[in-house]
């Protein structure tokens, strides 16, 4: 992270996100000046820091982009849809430039700029006056004298701003005289040195246009009052009652001494970022989590020792450490949590692009952006959600004409929402399109041989068919979807995060997909069991019940039929000691843990059930990628490693054994 270029990249990506959000906001509300300014600020900062860090290509491109956009800001050009989509493409180009300054295609850049320039001049009042490229400033007709009067927000110093720097910058524009108006500055006893109560008045003679004067204050524009008048125009400024010449005698800004690095970049950042945050590498947080996990394990050992030692003082210390360790664990888990809004905001662009490609009008609404989720999950959710959104736009929402026929608004609604429900997070993707057609799905599934023609399925069962590999109802394959790959991948990704997908659909009204996910991937509640000499963890959420393996069941098992009779239902079971080729003799009283996945049940036969266990999940290395029965590992209280059983895989295995057994039975019957 010490590489300056890397720092710039991280910052640039943030700014580009900010720019993209602003551009997308403008799509809905093209005249919102605040948003235009926000986009402009992002561009301006990008240009400045790009040049500072030696990204000249970025800086040059952004400069021209900014010039075009400046016309919009000044009201010279209309913000057309065309300009917006060009601006979004330009934003993508900047991203490419930032990522690989050499690799980006300069020709594309040139084309984009030419397009931007053309689009930003259409309909502009002085379209002819603005010539191409850098020098497009206009209004250049010799030195003009301006009178300025400005006052910063009271908290400008607290926010890390330095009015003196801005005034110095103003002076670089031309001959300038600045007076401070101190009427508002209270007497010494009431003076708060952190509050800026001074107003300034300046007379500036410059050949630069008015916009350059405004640009000096661009980062504090939101919180200041600024009046600029051309001398000779009607002046209605009240005469200053007292005025002293610069240098102004004020209490030296407290903030300035602590923050020698105060510059315009910081200024912009502070203005937009109210919460104080810091950027930490994800790896460090992961490492912290590892260390905390280790601490919890060491602490468990200490508690055990203290308990057996019987020394009261040691016991007290052990308890204190236990309390601290569990607090530390909670906080560390909290650090890894991120609001899901960061993910949702990415989809605005996706929806915008898709809606254009499909010629559909779509309104995306999001809610529950504050819902927090483990960082690694947010990353893993991105791809499945992209897929579901594509599906909703492509298959779910109808063509505008079809919507009109169905008596719906032309603009389709797509809503993304997230909420907490107990220890789960629910993420819903809902559209008001045509919904799933159960009859059609059923017919298609029969045609594709996924189900027999005479099975009675509930609507919910039929809806689950869309997750079947190779299943697709789209008559034609489009660029976006219809290849019948994807939904099964989505389902698998979600299941790998120990989540589930529910489908709710009403024909003609729309479709809602609800993802249910655990809060974190890092820690689960598990049941510790023993098979032979090995210890294994079964995720508690997958467990239905534990029963004793009766002598009768084992006898039938030896005849090749391994079913349990659980209150009338036949449940297949797997003998883990056989599966794991355990060599030690089995315990006399074997137990069965009934687990379920996808509403299918399998019994797992173990030697001993030890108890519940807070399981910090550690992934297995690639060296064990070929091992299918385990989803990860964890570290037990005594420091030993235990494996975590991959329940969906084991259930599949058990169910396929069942089918195999049934087939064999049929053969025997012949």
């Amino acid at each position, binding site marked *: 992270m010490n590489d300056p270029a890397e720092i710039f990249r991280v910052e640039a990506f943030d700014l580009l996100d900010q720019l993209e959000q602003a551009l997308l906001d403008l799509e809905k509300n093209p005249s919102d000046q605040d948003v235009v300014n926000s986009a402009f600020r992002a561009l301006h900062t990008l240009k400045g820091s790009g040049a500072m860090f030696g990204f000249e290509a970025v800086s040059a491109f952004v400069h021209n982009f900014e010039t075009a956009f400046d016309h919009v800001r000044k009201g010279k050009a209309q913000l057309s849809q065309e300009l917006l989509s060009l601006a979004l493409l330009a934003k993508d180009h900047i991203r490419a430039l930032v990522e690989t300054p050499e690799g980006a295609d300069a020709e594309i850049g040139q084309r984009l700029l030419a397009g931007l320039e053309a689009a930003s001049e259409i309909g502009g009042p002085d379209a002819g006056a603005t010539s191409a490229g850098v020098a497009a400033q206009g209004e250049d007709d010799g030195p003009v004298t301006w009178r300025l009067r400005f006052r910063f927000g009271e908290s400008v110093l607290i926010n890390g701003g330095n009015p003196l720097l801005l005034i110095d910058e103003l002076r670089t524009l031309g001959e300038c005289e600045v007076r401070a108006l101190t009427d508002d500055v209270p007497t010494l006893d009431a003076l708060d040195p952190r509050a800026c109560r001074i107003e300034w008045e300046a007379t500036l003679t410059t050949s630069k246009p008015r916009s350059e004067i405004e640009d000096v204050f661009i980062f504090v524009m939101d919180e200041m009052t600024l009046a600029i008048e051309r001398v000779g125009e009607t002046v209605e400024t009240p005469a200053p009652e007292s005025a002293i010449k610069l240098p102004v005698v004020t209490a030296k800004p407290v903030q300035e001494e602590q923050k020698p690095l105060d510059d315009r970049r910081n200024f912009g950042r502070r203005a937009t970022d109210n919460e104080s945050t810091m950027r930490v590498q994800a790896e460090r947080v992961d490492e912290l989590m590892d260390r905390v996990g280790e601490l919890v394990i060491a602490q468990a050992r200490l508690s055990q020792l203290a308990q057996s030692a019987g020394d009261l003082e040691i016991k007290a210390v052990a308890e204190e450490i236990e309390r601290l360790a569990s607090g530390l664990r909670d906080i560390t888990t909290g650090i890894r949590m991120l609001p899901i809004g960061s993910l949702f905001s990415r989809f605005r662009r996706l929806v915008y692009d898709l809606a254009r490609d499909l010629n559909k009008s779509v309104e995306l609404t999001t809610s529950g952006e504050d819902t927090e989720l483990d960082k690694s999950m947010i990353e893993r959710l991105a791809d499945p959600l992209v897929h579901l959104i594509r599906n909703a736009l492509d298959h779910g929402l109808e063509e505008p004409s079809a919507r009109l026929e169905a008596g719906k608004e032309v603009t389709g609604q797509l809503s993304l929402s997230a909420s907490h429900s107990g220890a789960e997070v629910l993420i819903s993707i809902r559209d008001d399109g045509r919904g799933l057609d159960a009859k059609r799905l059923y017919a298609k599934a029969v045609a594709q041989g996924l189900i027999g023609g005479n099975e009675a399925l509930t609507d919910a069962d039929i809806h689950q068919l869309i997750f079947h590999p190779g299943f697709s109802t789209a008559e034609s394959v489009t660029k976006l979807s219809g290849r019948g790959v994807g939904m099964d991948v989505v389902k698998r990704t979600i299941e790998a995060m120990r989540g589930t997908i529910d489908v709710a659909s009403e024909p003609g009204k729309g479709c809602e997909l609800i993802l249910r996910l655990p809060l974190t991937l890092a820690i689960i509640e598990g049941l510790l069991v023993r098979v032979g000499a090995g210890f294994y963890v079964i995720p508690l959420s997958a467990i239905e019940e534990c029963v004793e393996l009766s002598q009768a069941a084992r006898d039938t098992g030896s005849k090749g039929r391994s079913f349990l009779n659980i209150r009338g239902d036949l449940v297949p079971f797997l003998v883990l000691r056989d599966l794991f080729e355990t060599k030690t003799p089995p315990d006399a009283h074997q137990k069965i843990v009934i687990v379920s996945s996808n509403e299918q049940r399998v019994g797992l036969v173990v030697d001993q059930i030890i108890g519940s266990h807070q399981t910090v999940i550690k992934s297995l*290395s690639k060296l064990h990628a070929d091992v299918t029965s385990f989803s990860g590992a964890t570290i037990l209280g005594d420091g030993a490693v235990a494996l975590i059983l991959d329940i969906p895989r084991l259930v599949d295995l058990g169910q396929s054994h069942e089918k195999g057994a049934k087939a064999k039975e049929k053969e025997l019957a012949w």
Partner: protein
Amino acid sequence: MKTGDAKPFLMLGLGGEIFAIDAECVREILDPVPVTDVPGARDFVHGLINVRGKVAPLVDFRLRFGMEAAPATPDTRFIVLEVKLGQDTTFAGVIAEKVHEVAELSFSSLGPAPKIGMRWRPEFVKAIGQWRDGFVVVPNIDAILN
């Protein structure tokens, strides 16, 4: 003593041979810790160990070089290496029957593995070097693990 083209290697004994491992990728040397068996894993990575809160696979080079996996002795140690697996860098433990010392091997003393007359799969041997009075094997850890 230190010459320009020499590099430190960790010398460890396995099945009567001496293996030289680039000391740069050695993280630490552990006394044997409990090993968790991974059912269904390939035999040379049949175990998992706890390395300071991280779960690391335990690799037995002997089984990759056609040697007998002898039981642990008081000299047995686990060497923790930082290795690259595809894109990821991860820790892996390696069983050593005896750890000798860290010694410098000069590049000029390292030769390619002979094409014939070798019992081992040639891709597992990066080079053969000379140390003290004998030969040492510089294993190709990437090839052994992947």
